[in-house]
């Protein structure tokens, strides 16, 4: 009996060692595909990736791209461990991760404006951030970009979390605002304000007739979402990083220039996008018209591009229901956060500010030894490309 037990123990030990060693071997294998890690689920806001795939930009760059969705900490760790090569990750997550020894580097600032802000009904009487004092402010939770953005916004106005009545409401700001559950809410300014306004226009948002938005980016310039990779890939495969960023940058320019085309190309990746035959036809026509128009009218600055996008939207609004256009509107509002004179450029001042906010919030215990090592502009394509 004892002999049998010893045999069992030996078998169990062998199994355990085999299991652990197989993990070691698999961790050291070179991946055959390049994986891009993205947060949440497929969404129109990832349209530059879909456009890059559909137009073959990644394939032309020699990249067999695989997409994977999950939560940010997991993505950062997979990239840090070399299991995945690239990720679309927020700047504050990158700083927090580097503070804990993850060798990850920010190589392209995709969102040029921080996407978070505070939304409040017009009827709330809140006309500035100081007016939030003592008022009920909804927040998804004390984590992530929303919390960092709120802290930065309050700090820029000489306030702290203790000055407001902060309530955790999950990602339910439109519902909670419409029932009067809070006086204001921290939201992604390219999404929830549009939803609330659409509901208000349809009389489906209580007494709310419209909203006022206070973007964080109007007060402070924090680093937002961008492309990250790891130090080993940068050192050993810089050409891969440059190729990936070149393809992404090309696709991002295309989305900014021709959002109707981007919406259509995203349809196969985002199943929930509203599309009817009539809208499909209108966007197809708009895609061709915009390409022809751009050939004669090259848009060289963000302001003229934004004006053109507003023009396109007003054309569609004349013919289509707000519910059918909502995701297209989200895309246009998100493009406003991406567009800049120099796409992808990341600035040291933004990193210093973001680190200061994280230290203030206690998400970082100490400043990084070398903040400059956390980001680079070395892989940006030349200005005249794209």
């Amino acid at each position, binding site marked *: 009996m004892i002999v049998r037990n010893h045999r069992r123990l030996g078998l169990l030990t062998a199994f355990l060692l085999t299991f652990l060693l197989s993990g070691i071997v698999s961790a050291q294998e070179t991946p055959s595909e390049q994986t891009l890690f993205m947060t949440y689920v497929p969404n129109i806001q990832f349209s530059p990736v879909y456009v890059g795939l559909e137009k073959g930009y990644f394939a032309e760059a020699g990249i067999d791209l695989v997409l994977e969705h999950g939560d940010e900490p997991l993505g950062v760790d997979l990239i840090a*461990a070399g299991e995945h090569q690239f990720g679309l990750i927020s700047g504050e997550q990158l700083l*927090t991760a580097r503070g804990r020894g993850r060798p990850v580097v920010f190589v392209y600032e995709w969102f040029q404006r921080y996407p978070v802000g505070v939304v409040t009904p017009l009827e709330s009487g809140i006309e500035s951030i100081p007016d939030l004092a003592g008022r009920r402010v909804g927040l998804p939770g004390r*984590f992530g970009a929303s919390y960092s953005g709120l802290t930065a916004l309050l700090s820029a106005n000489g306030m702290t979390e203790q000055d407001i009545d902060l309530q955790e409401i999950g990602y339910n700001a439109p519902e909670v605002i419409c029932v009067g559950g809070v006086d204001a809410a921290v939201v992604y300014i390219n999404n929830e304000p549009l939803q609330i306004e659409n509901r208000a226009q349809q009389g489906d948002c209580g007494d709310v007739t419209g909203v006022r938005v206070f973007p964080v980016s109007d007060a402070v310039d924090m680093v937002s979402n961008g492309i990250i990779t790891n130090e080993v890939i940068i050192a050993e495969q810089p050409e891969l990083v440059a190729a990936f960023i070149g393809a992404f940058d090309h696709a991002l320019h295309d989305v900014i220039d021709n959002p109707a085309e981007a919406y259509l190309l995203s349809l196969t990746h985002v199943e929930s996008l509203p599309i009817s035959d009539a809208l499909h036809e209108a966007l197809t026509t708009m895609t061709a018209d915009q390409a022809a128009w751009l050939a004669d009218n090259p848009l060289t600055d963000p302001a003229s591009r934004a004006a053109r996008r507003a023009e396109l939207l007003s054309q569609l609004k004349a013919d289509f229901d707000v519910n059918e256009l909502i995701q297209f509107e989200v895309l246009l509002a998100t493009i406003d956060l991406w567009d800049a004179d120099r796409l992808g450029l990341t600035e040291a001042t933004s990193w210093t500010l973001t680190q200061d906010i994280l230290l203030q919030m206690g998400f970082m215990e100490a400043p990084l030894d070398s903040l400059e090592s956390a980001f680079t502009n070395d892989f940006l394509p030349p200005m005249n490309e794209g």
Partner: protein
Amino acid sequence: MKGSRRESRPAGRAFVPLLLPVLVLLVWQVIVSLGVYPEFIIPSPAAVLAKFVDVLRDGRLLANTWVTLSQTLAGLIIGVALSVLLGYAIAKNRLLDDLFSPLIIALQSTPVVAYAPLLVIWFGSGPTSKVVTSALIVFFPMLMNTVVGLRSVPKSLRDLMLSLRATPWQMFIHLEVPAALPVLLGGLKVSATLAVIGSVVGEFVSARAGLGWLINDARYNYDTPLVLVAVLMLAVIARVLYAAVGLVERRMLAWRR
């Protein structure tokens, strides 16, 4: 008899359960020493121990452990009470069996993580949703064990009790409970560990405290040693609950030995 059997065990036998944990610890330390993985993927046992001391000292570990433990116990008690009541009714009434069985089997085969977010929406992000999640995960296996336990009462004993003109209460107390108890307590052992899972799943979805929340918080702060401390603490809770039920089982079923 029992005492003599215990005395006859080889002296070293008491250490056998410790062998595997020690082996795991050794392999863990060897992997760390060889530098196969960077520290942020597999921190050293010493780093985890240091973190354990840190969070024990600052009170975070005990505070969050208490939250998870209290939710787990509440869920376990509610889940077991409801499942035993319904299980008894189903065991006694074939009509109820036919009525509930399809739903019970369907729900039992649904992973709790699939509907946990809905429970948080319905019951709020406070402790109630965690208690409900915990109770639900406990409910189905306990219900099954109750039905199986009660139906396993030998017909000959039932006939004997009836011949002695036993009342329904006497049948319940003197026959059904003792006969079903081994199966019920077996179910309770499994339920005790499942209740911990239910509570943590709820905390993973949305929470402000608890070991599940602590794991999520540590993940978002890239604090791998803290993740491991919280995971080990969950294992300790499950092991203690399992052992507690085992103790109850030994006392209540002493008559069988």
